[in-house]
């Protein structure tokens, strides 16, 4: 039975028509036996364009549709919706990309038209083999697992709990607050970190919907979006029930495991660990929280120096900028000047990144208190040596100052190293447990850096805060709330549609060779010992097709990307 196919060639205004002779393509395509109707139109993606398709489906009973226009990444969803509106299964549709990959990139009209004909014919040959596919819906467990109880974890947990949803807040340490708990004041408005946290921690402890699990770690995560089973274990050294294993059912997971500060001793030329008065930013925060700024021997420093980009923006450690240390350094200048007005503060930086709200004014106010700002080159690094007996300071910092072009020596009694951010040491393990990937620096990879920053390619796993990339508190809180909001939106829908495109194994073809079993990065393929057959969990399958290509008995069929469809398309495009 010859399938009735409608082919629509789009002018896209002049974007395609300028180079590709759409009429010639239409004529050629109409000669193909499988094609019932072939039309050209100015803007297929416009409403009248889509109505054209809907009318043809209704009047001529078209069973399959091909649109030769822009990239499927652009309007495949639009046209599928049009088919659905006309009552035809949305997967009975194929697009030929004759704009981004033809008219826009070729200047010879004749060759471009020939190519457009081939691409259109390939789509027709492929769509002949398309099958109707239905989207599966799975019900959604409303509980959420939040990993990490820093400012991001606390914010996300409260957002969900106060919306009436059950939340499991998992924290590997024995206290809440994460890295923010180790900080005294925050830049640029110098409000106290303690106030930010205390308010949230009290609300977390008093909320009925939150189950707080301190000293606990994620052991294993199985299942798929809406139906995860998380196995947790308590790691507390003493506490009751150490090592106790517990299983919980959750619908979504938010990973906000935060960051680890860069180990300053790795930078040998700063002498951290050898020179007692060279301390890291977190050591200085402890001093601030204790309320006294003093050198190791208890004396008040006459000269203080702050060095930026320790471990960040450097070839041998981390290339990225850790974003928060510049403003934190200026915060330290303010705190030193207010505590010890007579102290001369010098600030060694590569570039002053004052990009956020109120940062530039903060930077200007720091200049007004006569801080000596010294710029050193990106590849260069200052060297700290202890001073001689006749010097009036403990240490001397030698640096190749860029703004004056001079090699200078700076007196310093106290040197604060602004250590950058690094991925947590267990980030690799966390990533493997929840099946998300890491970039080469160890930060988790988001689904789309601009359009989808809090989701990951693994459905149901969200990421927020500094575990994604270095960022300051406002961005972290914004991401935490974004993740929580997306989960609330899903919970509100109740059901979750699982994509119709996935792989499936036919039982009578599978010979149990198990070659496909560990190919799947999402472990969506299980082996049934009794029946000696492999089976794909369709909800977890992301339709990458690795197993479909690998199955030596051709038993795995990639829905919407079957061998038959692709081979037909290949033959069609090489006509």
């Amino acid at each position, binding site marked *: 039975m010859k399938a009735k196919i409608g082919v629509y060639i789009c002018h896209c205004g002049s974007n395609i028509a300028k180079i590709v002779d759409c009429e010639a393509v239409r004529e050629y395509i109409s000669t193909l036996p499988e094609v019932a109707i072939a039309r050209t139109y100015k803007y297929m993606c416009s409403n009248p364009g889509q109505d054209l398709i809907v009318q043809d489906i209704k009047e001529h009973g078209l069973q399959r549709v091909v649109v030769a226009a822009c990239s499927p990444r652009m309007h495949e969803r639009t046209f599928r919706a049009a088919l659905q509106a006309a009552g035809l299964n949305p997967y009975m549709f194929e697009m030929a990309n004759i704009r*981004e990959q033809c008219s826009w990139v070729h200047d010879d009209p004749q060759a471009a038209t020939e190519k457009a004909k081939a*691409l259109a014919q390939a789509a027709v040959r492929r769509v002949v083999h398309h099958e109707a596919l239905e989207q599966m819906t799975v019900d959604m467990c409303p509980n959420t697992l939040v990993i990490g109880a820093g400012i991001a974890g606390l914010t996300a947990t409260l957002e969900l709990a106060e919306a009436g949803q059950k939340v499991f807040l998992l924290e590997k340490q024995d206290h809440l607050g994460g890295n923010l708990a180790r900080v005294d004041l925050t830049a640029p408005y110098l409000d106290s970190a303690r106030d930010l946290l205390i308010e949230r921690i009290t609300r977390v402890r008093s909320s009925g919907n939150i189950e707080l699990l301190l000293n606990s770690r994620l052991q294993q995560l199985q299942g798929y979006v809406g139906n995860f089973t998380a196995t947790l274990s308590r790691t507390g050294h003493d506490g009751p029930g150490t090592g106790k294993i517990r299983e919980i059912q959750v619908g979504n997971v938010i990973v906000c495991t935060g960051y680890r500060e860069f180990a300053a001793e790795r930078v040998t030329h700063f002498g951290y660990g050898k020179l007692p008065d060279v301390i890291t930013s977190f050591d200085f925060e402890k001093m601030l929280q204790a309320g006294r700024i003093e050198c190791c021997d208890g004396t008040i420093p006459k000269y203080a120096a702050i060095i930026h980009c320790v471990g960040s923006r450097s070839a041998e450690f981390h290339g990225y900028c850790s974003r928060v240390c510049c403003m934190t350094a200026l915060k330290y200048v303010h705190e030193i000047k207010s505590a010890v007005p007579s102290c001369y503060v010098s600030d060694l930086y590569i570039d002053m990144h004052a990009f956020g709200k109120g940062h530039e004014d903060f930077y200007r106010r720091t200049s007004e208190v006569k801080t000596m700002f010294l710029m050193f080159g990106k590849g260069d690094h200052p060297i700290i040596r202890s001073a001689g007996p006749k010097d009036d300071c403990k240490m001397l910092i030698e640096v190749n100052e860029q703004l004056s072009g001079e090699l200078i020596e700076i007196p310093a009694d106290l040197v604060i190293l602004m250590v950058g951010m690094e991925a947590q040491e267990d980030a690799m393990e966390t990533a493997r447990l929840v099946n998300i990937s890491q970039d080469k620096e160890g930060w988790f990879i988001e689904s789309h850096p601009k359009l989808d920053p809090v989701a990951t*390619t693994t459905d149901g796993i969200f990421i927020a805060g500094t575990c994604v990339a270095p960022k300051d508190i406002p961005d972290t809180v914004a991401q935490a709330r974004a993740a929580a909001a997306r989960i609330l939106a899903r919970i509100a829908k109740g059901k979750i549609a699982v994509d119709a495109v996935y792989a499936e194994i036919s039982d009578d073809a599978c010979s149990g060779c198990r070659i496909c079993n560990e190919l799947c990065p999402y472990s969506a393929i299980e082996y049934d010992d009794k029946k000696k057959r492999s089976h794909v969990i369709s909800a977890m399958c992301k339709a990458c097709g*690795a197993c*479909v290509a690998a199955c030596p008995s051709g038993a795995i069929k990639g829905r919407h990307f079957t061998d038959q469809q692709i081979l037909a398309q290949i033959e069609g495009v090489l006509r």
Partner: protein
Amino acid sequence: MSFEPRILGILCNWCSYAGADLAGTSRIHYPPNVRIIRVMCSARVDPTFVVKALVSGADGVLICGCHPGDCHYSEGNYKTMRRIPLLKKVLKDFGIEDERVRLEWISASEGQRFADIVKDMTERIRVLGPSHVACELHADPRER
């Protein structure tokens, strides 16, 4: 008229197909000899597709995937990284020039790189000349 090679391009949806689209939006011109089909991941490319393309008259096959480590499905391109060399080792025994089948890593932001690779491959295959794989495949066995 000089020989115009016909090359099949099999591009992965998340990186190389997006890169080819970027070449389009940035109006980076390249020869029209490569005709692209889209697969979800380069791991979906079965070497049988490449062989089928060669016997269906393709003068060259260009397979593109994400750079190792960037794969949308985290490990897909590693499989391609192993299948294509295996295939090329076999094709050599069939007398098919090594440059007719080519594997390249192209990220979604490398429109220019995709155009350059297409230009380079088209020129190399134009030099190699048409592929004889398809012709006299089904010819009468008796011809001398």
